[in-house]
């Protein structure tokens, strides 16, 4: 079970409050977590990563275990603490703009 924390705007869009808990088949990676997230909440498709290229949107970052994982390849296994649900996978909207 993977715990995911969404930014406020995406929680509203997905109509959830608090953390999202996902079952992910196989290794927990950025790609598999986002695949599971978008399957459960189709309204989030395209808001975190491009629907065609799969690239992370420029003002979105992925943090976990006090690390910035945004620039890790999407198929790199996430830290064990994420895969086991001890720590959440944080999807962050950059603090920018007006």
């Amino acid at each position: 079970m993977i715990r995911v924390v969404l930014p406020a705007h995406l929680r509203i869009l997905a109509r959830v409050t608090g953390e999202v808990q996902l079952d992910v088949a196989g290794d927990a990676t950025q790609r598999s977590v986002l695949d599971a997230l978008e399957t459960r909440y189709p309204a989030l498709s395209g808001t975190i990563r491009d629907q065609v290229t799969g690239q992370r949107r420029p003002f979105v970052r992925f943090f976990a275990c006090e690390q910035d994982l945004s620039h890790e390849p999407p198929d790199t296994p996430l830290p064990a603490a994420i895969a086991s649900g001890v720590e959440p996978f944080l999807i962050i909207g950059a603090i920018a703009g007006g």
Partner: protein
Amino acid sequence: MSKVRVLVGTRKGAFVLTADGKREQWDVSGPHFGGWEMYHIKGSPADPNRLYASQSTGWYGQLIQRSNDGGQTWEPVGNKFVYDGIPGTHQWYDGTPHPWEFKRVWHLEPSLTDPDTVYAGVEDAGLFRSTDAGQTWQELAGLRGHGSGPHWQPGAGGLCLHTIILDPADPQRIYIAISAAGAFRTDDGGQTWRPINRGLYSKYIPDPTAEVGHCVHHVAMHPSRPGVLFMQKHWDVMRSVDAGDSWQRISGNLPVDFGFAIDVHAHEPETVYVVPIKSDSEHYPPEGKLRVYRSRTGGNEWEPLSHGLPQRDCYVNVLRDAMAVDSLDACGVYFGTTGGQVYCSADGGDHWAPIVRDLPAVLSVEVQTLL
């Protein structure tokens, strides 16, 4: 009793303003989608409870929202806008080739007859259509595939397709406009397109009479005379009486013929409204006086309308999609400003009053007349 519903898109959310036919007491609903840029919201002429809204931010991209109950509840629908085939390139600001990249939806135009069919004008300039109420989108690629596409260049706001006009007399005919490529028309339902810019003169491009490259800001049409078009260009207000095949300048006695918004009275097809704006770089009303100009003669002869509008220290802008008219017997005219005001005139422009004064910057205003 008749009602009006005003759909307002702003930089930080959408607002729905409703009133009875007197248009004096207003109910304000919103913000909907607070914090998001709402470029455009428009209702279906075939089912006024069916609304479509363009929602976006630089953080989370583009969403399309649909309402089936007149804006009380909304649901996100399809937001996958993929250009047909290999997108190719247009020109960048510096004149170099630049790949076509989807950025946002500027304008949504529901079909005149089918609530489930809606067109989307997007940046980088392209025209998409959904026939399943917004769930999926397909590009009408004949427009972008027009031979001039590689020469299109963005205006200051981006290479945006911002105007879509459906001809009520001919379902195969659609007009669109792009900044800064110009106006185009299809007569076969969107398969093939032709530029309709003959008569436009733009001294800011290398060939002032070029077939494409003109910064058309907005185009308006009266539904009873679909071959007559009115255009607010970067400079110049223009008119065509032959479906865009040729254009004549009708700026006449306007204090300045730069502006963004233009619209036509609901019952008088020769009565046209514009809001002159000082430019090139200021983009606020001349002399700090917010004035709508009205021509009752299809252009050339214009009168300022200022009763109820600020006549000193006013430095707002009125953007291209931020003016609309209702179709009540006494035609209502509406516009929104970048200062967050939405003004209404219930008498064709003679007298104005603010409906709201302090919204975020207004990007678009549409009106539904509900019987």
